[in-house]
C-alpha cells in the first residue's frame, strides 16, 4: 500500500458526466459477463439455423406451379427472427435482473 496513490487530485483531470458515461458503464457491464457471449452465440446460431432449416425443406424443382407462386423466400428466410428476438429478450432480462440479485443496482442508480 502506498500513500502516494491516495492523495486527492489523482482523478480530478477529466470532468464530464451524463448519458455517455452511463452508456459506457452499461456497455462495460454487458461485455464483462460470460452469459452475454453465450446468448449472442445462441442468438446467431438459432436465428440463422432455423431459417436454413425451414428453407432446406423447400425444393423449387419439384414444386407445383401454385406452390411456386405462393413461395415467399424472404418471409421464410425470416423464420428464425422470432426465436432470435426471444433470445435477445433473455439477454436484456438477465442484464437487469442480475443487477438486482447482486445488489449492484444500488451502485448503478446511486451513481447516475
Amino acid at each position, binding site marked *: *500500500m*502506498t500513500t502516494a496513490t*491516495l492523495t486527492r487530485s*489523482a482523478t480530478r483531470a477529466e470532468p*464530464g*458526466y451524463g448519458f455517455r*458515461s452511463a452508456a459506457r458503464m452499461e456497455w462495460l457491464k454487458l461485455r*464483462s459477463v460470460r452469459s452475454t457471449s453465450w446468448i449472442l452465440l445462441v442468438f446467431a446460431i438459432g436465428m440463422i439455423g432455423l431459417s436454413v432449416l425451414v428453407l432446406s425443406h423447400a425444393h423449387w424443382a419439384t414444386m407445383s406451379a401454385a406452390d411456386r407462386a405462393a413461395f415467399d423466400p424472404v418471409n421464410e428466410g425470416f423464420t428464425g427472427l422470432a426465436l432470435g428476438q426471444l433470445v435477445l429478450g433473455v439477454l436484456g432480462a438477465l442484464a437487469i435482473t442480475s443487477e438486482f440479485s447482486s445488489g449492484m443496482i444500488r451502485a448503478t442508480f*446511486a*451513481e447516475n
Partner: protein
Amino acid sequence: MIEARGLVKRYGSTIAVDNLSFDVMPGTVTGFLGPNGAGKSTTMRMMLGLDRPDSGTVRISGKDYHDLHSPLREVGALLEAKAFHPGRTARAHLTALAASNSIPKARVNDVLEITGLEKAADRRAGKFSLGMSQRLGIAAALLGDPAVLLLDEPVNGLDPEGIRWIRNLLKNLAAQGRTVLVSSHLISEVAQTADRLVVIGQGRLLAQTTVAELSARSNSLEEAFFALTEGSAEYSASNLAYQGSIS
C-alpha cells in the same frame, strides 16, 4: 463533512430513524455505533439517496446527494460486501463503476493496489472470500478519490491482518483530511480506529462524543457503551446471565 438534520424514516408503523441530527467532521474517523436494528444502515442509505427521509435533510460536503455532480468523486460507500455480479472480474466491476463517473482507467489499478487485490483482479469476484469481497467493496468506495467515505461494517469477514490493514487505511484517509464514517455494532473495534463517535439506539441519537470522553464515563469503554444503549436494543438483554442450572 456530513450534516444530518432532523432525519426521520418510517417503515409502516415502525420508526427506523427518529429525528436524528449529527455532524461528521473531516479529518477524523467517526464511529457510527448502535445495537443491531438501531437504524445505522438506514441512515447511511439516506445519506446516499437510496432511501428518501420522511422528513429532515442530510448534506454531504454541503450538498444534497442528488445535487452532486459526480457522486463517486464526492462520496465513496461500502454498504454491502457482495454487491457485485459474481461472474464479473474485480477489474471489470471497478472499470464499469469508473466509467459511470468518467474516472480515468488508471485509477482502477491504483485502488486494486491499495486494497491488495492486484493478483486477484482478473478472477471472477463470485469466487472471492468474504474478506476479499470487502476489499473489493472498499476499492469501489475509493475509486473516485472521494472526500467523504461511508463504510457499513467494513471489518466483517476480515482476518486479523485485514482488520489491522483497514484500521491503518482509515486513519490514513482521515489524516488526509477526508471525512470517514464507519458503522459497527462493536465498540471495542471502533475504539481502535475512531476518534469521534455517533451513538444511536432505536433511531435516536444517544451521544455525539469522542472515544476518550465516553471511556471516561465508566470503568471501561464497553460498560459505558452498554450503559448508553441500555433499553434501546430491539430485544431484551435482561437474561444476560442465564438463570437456569444444567443437570
